[in-house]
């Protein structure tokens, strides 16, 4: 029986085949997955913000791109993944409301995507697929049996990346 493991906002989960990790209703947030196709283990992280150093008083590293990605990496490796085989995918980072004068907060989706990329690069993990930006919400899931990352939307249907 394949488990469906739910990942909440500012949280992450790791697991192994045949589980599927899912995170619902991402707007400017981003769902980053790591996957080792040989060991069939992986993780899904749901970050809200790009940079923990810009923030006050948060005890939750999974909320930020810069602290969340290394945290999940550690747990995925502990499950038996090999760092050299790990590949990353990500989706989300939308701008839900269009304002004429977009403030930094409004553009947080784009900044999130940038921060994840930077973090993956510095950790030496290859980003092989992404579906970011635009102005709609996404539900994302990764199937740890085959590494297929599915993006579901209300307005643009469903796709695999």
């Amino acid at each position, binding site marked *: 029986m394949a488990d469906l493991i739910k990942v909440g906002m500012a949280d992450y989960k790791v697991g192994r085949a045949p589980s599927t990790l899912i995170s619902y209703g991402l707007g400017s947030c981003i769902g980053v997955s790591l996957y080792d196709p040989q060991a069939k283990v992986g993780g899904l992280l749901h970050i809200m913000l790009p940079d923990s150093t810009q923030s006050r008083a948060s005890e939750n590293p999974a909320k930020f791109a810069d602290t969340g990605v290394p945290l999940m990496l550690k747990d995925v490796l502990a499950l038996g993944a090999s760092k050299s085989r790990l590949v990353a995918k990500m989706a989300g980072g939308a701008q839900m409301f269009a304002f004429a004068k977009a403030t930094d907060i409004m553009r947080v989706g784009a900044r999130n995507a940038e921060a994840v990329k930077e973090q993956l690069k510095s950790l030496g993990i290859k980003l092989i697929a992404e579906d970011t930006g635009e102005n*709609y919400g996404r539900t994302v899931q990764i199937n740890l049996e085959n590494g297929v990352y599915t993006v579901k939307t*209300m307005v643009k249907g469903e796709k695999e990346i």
Partner: protein
Amino acid sequence: MPDDIMQLSPTQMDALREIGNVGAGNSATALSQIINHRIDMNVPEVSIVPLGDVPDLVGGPEAMVVGVFLRVYGQAPGNILFLLPAESAFYLVDMLMGKKRGETQNLDYLDESALMEIGNILAGAYLNALFNLTKLSLLPSIPALAMDMAGAILNVVLIQLGQMGDHALVIETEFTTDEEGIKGHFFLVPDPGSLDTILTAVGV
């Protein structure tokens, strides 16, 4: 003063509930006059919830909703979000546009504009009441609208809070109309720094 929302006293929570009550009452009256129907509202919930749980307040992160978002500027900045289940938003458009109930199945440009105007009026009424109570000058931005998953829309108001802590203070009121089956949620989410300002202004 509570920089940390987890340390609010019962009296302060009561004060915030009363602010929500007066603000939402004013908004409900305004809405009722526009659509010519009685509007009921519940006693506002003032809750401090983990950020991840906020979407559950409106039926879960994947529920299809229409959100009208306004940024509040002035002495106590924050965010206002008026959320309606998609069905309710369609009925509301039917009423506003003089269409038959059930006619609206999707939102065109004009429908969106009408709903944004509703958001504008509700926010204005809410902030006016808040001004009368606190003498804090608060101005809403122009409204923006999105129809999508509740989680995605709520992201917008939660992001700013996320920079400060892991919990959100949410002042939330549910509106219902007498017969048309329209339901909406009105959220006032003060920026973390604004809470002190509001509480000081009402003297608690």
